[in-house]
């Protein structure tokens, strides 16, 4: 029963938080660029308008993958709030990512294809780091269960700080911020039109937006896992990370996809591997 309430609350509250954060993002970014920026509630106005639009279609399958993107994103977030297995969380998030790529591939639009291929490279860049993060949690706690993280008095950050840096790195990819806004971008720095979501429109674009809000809450929640006792410290860390990303977005230029994958597979993985190796040799199996 308690779980059902948590599920319903998450379904309702997460998009509100996500939408507000997106509104704050647009406002702060505008200020950093010397503009005034839209109202904080603008993302909500946008999504309501999109939902009211007439449906137009380039491909039936694309609609299926948009649904699947949203559903798997929510399922992944539920894994987090119900404190389930962190590996399941990563795998569900993986399905969501694949759905978006397939949504982009489900039409013969060149822009959409560019974007989908790049989104796939983004998955290639962040997926191993997320999985290493999961193994790092296992190394530290002896289980993949998120509930166990909450039982520990010592925050994960103390022993897993290299992995924390790696997770911040993938946060940039996940939030589609420069230098990694490669498949599509929040703000208008993109040469492939709107990348993977070029062909998304009307209510289905609204569903995509909604999924992005859930995703933002999810990835910030993952950052917060590094300090769960007391949880408010973790939430503050997550918010600080969020603000940091906005600054990085505005001071960095967009990089190429190859550069992103290489950096992630060298520095990102190395941080994770060193971290896990250290725990393995100090704590044992």
């Amino acid at each position: 029963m308690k779980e059902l309430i948590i599920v319903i609350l998450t379904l309702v509250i997460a998009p509100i938080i996500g939408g507000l954060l997106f509104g704050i993002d647009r406002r702060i970014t505008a200020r950093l660029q010397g503009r005034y920026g839209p109202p904080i509630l603008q993302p909500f106005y946008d999504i309501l308008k999109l939902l009211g639009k007439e449906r137009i279609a380039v491909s039936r399958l694309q609609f299926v993958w948009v649904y699947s993107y949203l559903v798997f994103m929510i399922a992944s977030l539920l894994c987090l709030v119900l404190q389930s297995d962190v590996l399941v969380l990563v795998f569900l998030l993986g399905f969501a990512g694949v759905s978006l790529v397939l949504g982009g591939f489900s039409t013969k639009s060149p822009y959409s294809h560019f974007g989908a291929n790049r989104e796939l490279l983004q998955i290639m860049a962040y997926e191993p780091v997320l999985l290493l993060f999961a193994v790092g949690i296992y190394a530290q706690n002896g289980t993949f269960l998120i509930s166990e993280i909450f039982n520990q008095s010592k925050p994960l950050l103390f022993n897993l700080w290299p992995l924390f840096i790696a997770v911040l790195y993938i946060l940039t990819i996940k939030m589609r911020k420069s230098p990694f806004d490669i498949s599509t971008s929040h703000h208008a720095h993109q040469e492939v039109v709107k990348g993977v979501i070029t062909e998304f429109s009307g209510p289905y674009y609204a569903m995509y937006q909604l999924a992005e809000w859930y995703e933002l809450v999810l990835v910030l929640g993952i950052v917060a896992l590094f300090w769960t006792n007391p949880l408010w410290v973790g939430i503050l860390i997550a918010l600080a990370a969020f603000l940091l990303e906005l600054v990085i977005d505005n001071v960095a230029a967009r990089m190429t996809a190859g550069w992103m994958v290489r950096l992630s597979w060298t520095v990102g993985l190395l941080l994770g591997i060193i971290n896990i190796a250290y725990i393995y040799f100090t704590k044992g199996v």
Partner: protein
Amino acid sequence: MTDVMMAIAILLPLVAGLIIFAVRNYFLRSVIVVATALTLIVNSILTLKHGPFTYTPTGFDWGLLITILDYAILLFYIYLGVTLRNRLVLIFSFTQLIPLLYFEFIMKAHADVQPAFVVDHLAIVMTLVISIIGSLICIYALRYMYDHEQHAHVEKSRQSRFLLWLVLFLGAMNGLVFANNLLWLYFFWEVTTMCCFLLIAHDKTPLAIGNAARALWMNCIGGTAFVLAMVFLYAKHGGDALSVQAIIGGGIQGSLFLLAVALLCFTGCTKAAQMPFQSWLLGAMVAPTPVSALLHSSTMVKAGVYLVLRLAPAFAGTYLSTAITIVGAFTFFATSALAISQTTGKRVLAYSTIANLGLIIACAGINTPLSIAAAILLIIFHAISKGLLFLCAGTIEHQIWSREIEDMEGLAAKAPLTTLITVVGMLSMFLPPFGMLLGKWIAIEAAYRVPLAAVLFILASTLTIVFWTKWLGRLLQVLPKLGLPFEKLSPSYSVPLLTLVLGIFVVGIGIAPIYQNFIAAATSNVISGNQVLAAGWANIALTGTSVKAVLGYFPVWLLFVVFALGVVLPFLFVKLKPTELRPIYICGEQSGGLEGDSYLAEADTKTKIILGGYYFEDSLGEKALNPWFNTLAIILFVIMIGCGVILK
């Protein structure tokens, strides 16, 4: 009862195969194949119901017959080496023949292993996989070979010959997984190698024969290691050691013992096409698709992983165990990377098979109840999904007459049913809620004991996502139009395809009860070695592998609910109206209306849009990576055999 079951499992395929060979009528032949297939399936289910048993055939000197047949097969290899003028085949046939002659005539090896067959829970799992999936593939082959010969305009039909080897393969595999006597195991091992050669060479093109010869000599290297292992075991420990149960029982110790085990594992790795032996399985892709389906899903390569898994208790707790883990994990990683650059559908499937076999071998090497459970689950799920995918590849090939991924562009609009089944098969290879991912999930959980393996698993599963998604994307690319009705498939195609799709969902959703009733026992049998014989079947303790320990605290069927909500329901209920269709966005330079896929380029010339997948040939191609990967793989094998020499 047990003697009838054994006879059906091992001898019926031989007898039925010979009858099929003699019958030249398509319809009559089909009836016999279907009847044999059904008998094998029913027999395997009866074996499951009967439970484990041991069996020694009596009334005839079977050992002598098997010895004679051993030499017959080896002489056949030598004959092939001479007629094909293939030096490698000759060399490795002799390296097998000479130690075998030494073993039987100089050492006068004499083994009266009791019992000759041990059918434990693992063997039952294997026989179910072999009989059910293998039989479905034989049914599929009926129509496939007919179409295949129609398309190639073959003058004299060779379908019955083909079906003989296909059906015989199933019997040899059943014998292989049941055998306890090492000499008999060796015999069945060689029969599968021989059938494999004959099936790959079936089309008789120079490429087919060359690749078949490669498969033969590479497997002969494995066979040589097998014979050497038997020689070492016999020399040190006598005839009693030539029994699988004795090897895994823990009773034998000694300097040559672990080396023999290492050699047997090496044999398993060659048959499972682990790097650097991957090229024989890739070459086998030239064969008609049912051969690939059979080799990859239920037979041949599964014999390799079966042997390593079976021997797990013999190397538990040694350096050899860790070395095997790294060998498998490395292959998992390397072949997943190589799969990205492949442009031919069947080669992607082949690399993916080798990768998953590597994962299974790595799980056997990790050697905990959890990892062994993962290995058995992976064997089952991989057999279903990969069997399905190869059959899909064959069906696609017979619709577009090409194996190239780029030619499959937009298949969703041409052959919706085939595409749908293929998509299910592909999703089941790498995404939740399906079984293969479940296996990987358990494997990663178990892998922390060998952190290097855990890291390789992680990298490999990421690469896996990339190559499957890329391919899926090519299939799904469509122009704005309403869907077509499903195309018609011959029942010889649709029945096996749909049965396997059903299998993916049934085994996936019901994994908890299936694990509890059936795989947990197999895991315990593997872990406990030969205590099964000493203690009796009923007295084997379940070794700490409860459903919860293996499947986690997260009910798997819930993931299927998510899948139904996210994919199945939208697929069923999202419908388009013709008025909703719009052309794609090309910056306003659209040309040719709604379904137009061209745009106005310079000077308003109408230009067709051509899209293609990414293959990263320069950075991830075989040319770029193979020298590094093969060298590393050889070093790893040397270390592995070396670990057999070092006693812990």
